[in-house]
């Protein structure tokens, strides 16, 4: 049996992390969490993830600042960015820096699930 897709959730808000963890775990994904860029990098050193779901605005290096480094360390990982709505410029920047999906908070859980599924499909395609 194929292993379950793994997702790393990076967000500085514990409630938001908890929500995403609950929902994605419920969907059967293998989830882990990190509260900022440093923790995310540490987590990625331990193992790889299929998907990273990352907030743009965090204390320390922002999600956008982390993007290029993450792309280099784990090029196969699909990165989905999250940010407050209306942040169009950073959306452009994120897409350029290699994010595959972009979610504007507040988003519906269904929306998030679709984005994750699409990212997984994309990853499967690129591997094939």
């Amino acid at each position: 049996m194929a292993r379950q897709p793994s997702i790393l959730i990076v967000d500085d808000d514990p409630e938001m992390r908890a929500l995403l963890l609950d929902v994605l775990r419920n969907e059967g994904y293998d989830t882990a969490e990190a509260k900022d860029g440093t923790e995310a990098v540490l987590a990625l050193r331990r193992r790889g993830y299929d998907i990273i779901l990352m907030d743009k605005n965090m204390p320390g290096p922002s999600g956008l600042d982390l993007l290029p480094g993450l792309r280099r360390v784990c090029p196969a990982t699909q990165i989905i960015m999250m940010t407050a709505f209306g942040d169009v410029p950073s959306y452009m920047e994120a897409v350029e820096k290699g994010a595959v999906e972009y979610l504007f908070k507040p988003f519906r859980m269904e929306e998030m699930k679709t984005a994750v599924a699409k990212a997984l499909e994309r990853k499967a395609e690129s591997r094939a």
Partner: protein
Amino acid sequence: MTATPAPRPRSRWRAILARNLTLRLVILLMLILMTFTGINDYIRLTREREQLLRQTQEDERIFAETLALAVSRNVRRGQTTSELQELLDDILSRPGLVAVTIYSPEGSVVAETVAVGEAPPALDDLVRTALRRGPQAAPLESKSGPLLRFIQPFRWPGGRTAALEVRQALGDMERQFREAVRKQILSRFEVMALLVLCLIAVTRWSIARPIRKLIAGARAVGTGDLAQRIELTRQDEIGQLADEFNRMAAYLQAAHDELVLQAQERLKLEQEVQQAQKLGEVGMLAAKMAHEIGTPLNVISGRAEVLGQVIPRDHPDRRHLDVILRQAERIGGSIRALLNYTRPRRASLRPEPILPILGRVASLLMERSQRRGVRIHLELPVGLPPVLADPDQLQQAFLNLVLNALDASPPGSVVRLATGDGPLRPTEGWASVIRGKVEGPALPIHVIDTGKGMTAEQLDHVFEPFFSTKGQGLGTGLGLPIVEEIIRAHRAEIEMLSLPDNGTEVIVRLPLAHPEAAAPAGLRPTGGPHG
């Protein structure tokens, strides 16, 4: 109180003459005319007088000759002295005749008749000369006025020569002459008066009136009525002057209109910039709010969604959940609407020269900088390669940067806008912060001030919304966050270096529009040291 002394008549006349061109012209012409006609009249009258005198002499000569002939005949006929005397007394009734004397060949008076009050003639040199050589004439001044003497020799019995003297008053002739002079002067004055009137009329019509029009026009233009034109349909110098004047007024009006237009345009631009600034600030505020609210709202709606999957649709308490979901949706909608209203439109990047953008920034801030006593120096060479920019947004970004520099600068200092690779001043030990990142060749634009500068601590927070180093009420703390947003939208980079009491240097690195044509000098790819 000081009494102003009344102007002396002389200076008043001088003032009138100085102000009145017509009067001056008339007086000048009159003087010239009077001189010429005066000389002419003098010569003519002198000739006339001589003519009159000659005429009188001639009359006298004829009279004397006739009388001498008559006396000679009577003497030869043997008339006595008393008879001669009778003849002479009869003759004295001739107008103007003052005296008639008959001298014997020895020179003694034979008979004479003299008008009342006149001195009786006596033998003198002129009579002797006449006795020897023939008729003599000479003027003589007497008590009653000028006289003319005429001495006519005639044959005396015994072959000798006697003489007859006639004295005629010239008063009549003088009277005639004076009359002639008087008439002459009178007619001269009439002509002159007529001439003066004509002159005044002509100068008024052809000089004073148009000049007054010119003066009125010039005065109107001088007081700001630039639409004033002078209507003169003349080809002469005054007409040309009016044409020139109209041309000048038209030029002034055009220049004035141009200035007004420029000022209006600038005002409009300034208002637009202010509006954009305000909208940018409100947008930034809304974004900040959206960001603060976004996550908790997402947690609420997400949790409600999770619950929604657990609680069946027909559960009696399911409605509570639906209300939570709908209300969360509503909050999201409100914030989205606010953002849509205030969010700056997306940057549309295209190749743009940077110089006009910075020029506009400098001109928009000219008044403010003058007020603060700070100068803005544009130290940018022409021919800089075009950058990828949204001119309006980039203008706003630089406006904020230069505004900050102005506000931090002491009076008398200079804010420089320059280009160059690294920091343009020694910045060792300066704190620095970078936002955004540029890939490929870029054009660096520096905004440099020698103001109060910032500490490393302040610099770390400088791009955070609502952080301001300006005094209370001076800055909104949204300027630099907006700058950062614009810089990021441009895929550009902003570096800020600062040291307290030394000033701040901002370097904005803008991606070139044509990276493949990057000039070698000063435009090497940046980003390496910061990556």
